[in-house]
Structures are given as C-alpha cells and as structure tokens.
C-alpha cells in the first residue's frame, strides 16, 4: 500500500466520512436548443449535479436551465452553473492535505486547513449572485467567440466562510501592498499554459463582504463549484470568485498575469460598449455586475391562456439593491410596477411578480426593467464588446394570448 493511499484511508477512517461522489451519467440523448445559431447542447449529469446544459465537456462548462430560476431565490447547489477555464481540474480534494496559504508581502505567512478556517475565525454569511462575465454571450449581435451561454451562466447562493480581511489582518499586510492575487488548484494541461489567477486592489480586498467560503447553501461546495473553499466577491463578476482557492498572495504591483492584463478586459468607453469595427480604445479589467431582470415563468414564444396572468421573475445588481421592477406588455411603451419579494440582501436575486390581464387575444411583447436604489436602470440598447461581456439590456418576451 502506498503512503498516500494509507494516509487517505486513515483520514477517511478518522472522520468516518468519505465521499466518492461520483460518477458522471450522461443522459440518454437529451438535448436543448438554445435560441441562437448553433445552439443545440446536450444535457448531462456531472458529479454532484443534476441534469444541466453542457457547454463544454472538457474543461467542464455547464449552464443552469433557466426554469430553475423560477424556484427559490437560492439556486440549488446541484443546479448551479459550472465554468472552468483549464482542463486541469483536480478530481480529488483531500481536506487532510489541502492547505490555504496566505503569503507574499505579509509580516507572517500563514497556512490553514479548512478545519482551522471553520474553527479559528468568526463565520460570516452573504447571499450573493455569481454571474459569469460572458453570461448571455450567445445573444450578442454580431456574435463573438467564447463560451456561448444563453442566460443561465449565473446563480445565487448563501455563502458562508471567513472574511478575507480577517485572514489578511492575521498575516499582517505589508506597507507597500498594492493588490492581492488569488490562485486555485486548477491548471492547464500544458505546463506553459498560464495558471488561472485573479487580483483585487488591496483597498477593496479588505471589504468585509468579501469572504473565503467553505459552505454554499448550508453544505460544502460541490467540487465543480470550487470545493473546498472559494473566494466570494459579492457584486463582482464570477471571474474573481476563484475556485479551489489555495493561494492568497499580497503583491506590491498591479498584477500583470494573463488573466488580468489580457483576458477579462472591457472597453474603457461610455457604457463599456464599442462598435465591431472599433479599435485602439483603452481597456480595464472587468469589475461589477450591471443591473438585470428576467421573467422566469414565461419564455419567448409561449402561448398563454386568456385571463389574468401572474408574471414572475428575478432581478439583481451589484449591491445597491433593487428599488423597482416594472413590466411592460406593449414592448416598452408603458410600464406597470411589480411587487418585490423578500429581501435576502443587496447582492441577492430579488424575486418579483405582477398580475397582468391581457386586454384581449393576440400577440404581446412583454419586457421587464429593473432599477437600483442608486438609479441605475436597464435600457433597450444592448452592449457590444469583442469578448461578449456585460450583457444587461431589457429582456423582451414575445407571447401570444
């Protein structure tokens, strides 16, 4: 028996808990047609996941079917979307050997087990939306290359963990600190492929809302969502929410690694939008979510019975909080206020609903529009940028009564 095998068995015996959570089951022939050219995708069950939309098998990229968002504000862990950049995703994580390191420009480099994170620091919780930078990329016109999501590259969960600030304070941040860089256990297939790393400014990294999460909706994270710990950056796009977080490094410069300097950049132009033939504009790292809203109980093209209809949906923003959601049944000419659901915090999905009585049979264009407490609102002008980020315009749904 090898030493690692002995250690593995010993640790499993010590805790009495061993999860060989398994096996992937590809559904027999199921697929969906996302409403875009080349939109056919298989449905499959990946480990710890229900049947999701397969955007890529390797690396695993899985989209949440949109009807999931008509349920609880909290997206179930087994339905939560998955997105990895590099195919070197570890298929085993052993808490007996896993360590989270805090180093770089600190007074005292520190190393933690997950048990130490759970035991030695105050636990904090935040409900927050995790949305891929390129969610809805498949609806860009003209289309752009990338992960061709419909609208299900997002989810909302109650994250529980320790404040990043507490870890940094314990390690003692050096005076010349400029940013904090985060690295997970994932890696490229080729050794030369740049490892996935993201960085936040030091002044922002000490925001008490940013946590290193070990629980998601009251349970350990699914491996594909970043078990055992993941960075949670409420209000910011998911690219910063580093999965399988293993290294926190304080640095004295603005990080120039590929994933900050070249990838995940948006035009530094009004609305972060450009025309397809535009060149020579400055870019900045992608940052906060834009306000969005969706109808969750109807889809484009649905036929509705006559009489009063309940239209339901969700809205979210970067943390100012949703002030209003409005529904239009005439393509945006007039608007009716919706009733907002319970408030799970400013970073959460906010449910809304409205009773709508169509005045008669015929076609209608439903549209929903959310406005934040700071006055940010949705418009009907889609953003365009070459990487397909930040889509957030008013959604419309053509229905027939």
């Amino acid at each position, binding site marked *: 028996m090898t030493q690692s095998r002995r250690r*593995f068995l010993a*640790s*499993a015996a*010590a*805790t009495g*808990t*061993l*999860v*060989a*959570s*398994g*096996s*992937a*089951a*590809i*559904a*027999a*022939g*199921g*697929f969906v047609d996302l409403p*875009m050219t*080349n939109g*056919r*995708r*298989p449905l*499959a*069950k*990946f*480990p*710890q996941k229900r049947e999701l939309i*397969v955007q*890529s*098998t*390797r*690396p*695993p990229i899985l989209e949440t079917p949109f009807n999931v968002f008509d349920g609880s504000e909290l997206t179930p862990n*087994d339905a939560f979307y998955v997105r990895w950049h*590099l*195919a070197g995703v570890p*298929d*085993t*994580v*052993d*808490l*007996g050997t896993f360590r989270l390191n805090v180093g770089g420009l600190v007074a005292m480099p520190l190393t933690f087990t997950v048990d130490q994170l759970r035991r030695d620091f105050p636990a904090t919780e935040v409900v927050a939306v995790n949305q891929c930078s390129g969610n809805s990329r498949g609806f860009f016109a003209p*289309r752009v*290359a*990338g992960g*061709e999501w419909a609208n299900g590259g997002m989810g909302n969960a109650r994250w529980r963990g320790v404040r990043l600030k507490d870890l940094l304070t314990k390690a003692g941040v050096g005076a010349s600190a400029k940013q904090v860089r985060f690295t997970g256990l994932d890696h*490229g*297939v*080729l050794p030369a*492929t*740049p490892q996935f790393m993201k960085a936040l400014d030091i002044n922002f990294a000490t925001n008490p809302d940013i946590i290193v999460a070990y629980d998601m909706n009251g*349970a*350990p994270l699914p*491996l*594909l969502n970043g078990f*055992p710990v993941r960075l949670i950056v409420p209000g910011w796009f998911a690219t910063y929410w580093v999965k399988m977080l293993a290294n926190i490094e304080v640095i004295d410069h603005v990080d120039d690694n590929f994933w900050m300097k070249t*990838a995940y950049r948006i035009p530094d132009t009004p609305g972060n939008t450009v025309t397809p033939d535009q060149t020579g504009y400055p870019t900045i790292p992608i940052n906060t979510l834009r306000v969005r809203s969706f109808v969750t109980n109807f889809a484009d093209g649905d036929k509705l019975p006559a009489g009063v209809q309940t239209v339901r949906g969700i809205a979210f923003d970067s943390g100012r909080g949703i002030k209003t959601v409005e529904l239009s049944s005439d393509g945006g000419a007039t608007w009716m206020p919706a009733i907002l659901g319970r408030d799970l915090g400013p970073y959460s999905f906010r449910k809304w609903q409205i009773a709508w009585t169509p005045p008669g049979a015929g076609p209608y264009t439903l549209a929903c529009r959310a406005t934040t407490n700071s006055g940010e609102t949705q418009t009907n002008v889609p953003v365009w940028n070459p990487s397909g980020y930040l889509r957030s315009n008013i959604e419309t749904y053509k229905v027939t009564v």
Partner: protein
Amino acid sequence: MRAPIAGIALAVGLAAAGLLSLRAHAASNPQVVTIKLPATTVDFKPGPNVATAQTNCLICHGADYVYNQPALSRTQWTAEVNKMRNAYKATIADGDVDKIVDYLMSANGKT
C-alpha cells in the same frame, strides 16, 4: 452538425451511483471528495487535416467547444488558433496553423 450524445449504456448504473454519493455528501462534512468527470462524446467530424486538428486542439479542450461557436470567419478562426498558441502556449507548429484553420473552416466556418 454534431454527434449526438445518445446511447450511453452505463447511464442507469452511473445515475444510481450518483444518488448514493449525494446521500453521503449530505450526511456531514466530507474529508475527501472524489469525482469522475465524463468523457467527451463529441469528436471532430471528418474534414481536411482532421488529424492535425485532433492532435493539436484536443490536448487542452474538447471538440464541442468548436461546434458550439457561431460560424466564424477565416480571420476569426485564425485569431483563435493564434490565441491558443500565443496566450495558452499550445505547441502548434508554424506550418500547422493554416491546416488547422482549414479544418475549422470546414467544421464551422463562415465564408
């Protein structure tokens, strides 16, 4: 356009294994989590230089990534291949770039 993912005989048994693991997962905080990712069921369809595409592209990602893109122009596919070389350090020989682009144009190109 793409190979169907149907006909996986193991589906039922694997689904049962998945249920078992979910129960264990819910019981308490796990000490070791191990998963087995499914193998891709999509392969490059025949076309010019398909072997070159298979040898170079499938080292790092599945073929489904190509078919799920909108049809791209020759300029766009060339940019993608060069991104794989320059940014992700794929070891694609100089002489293979055009061959791979030829293949990608046949597989999902916009002319």
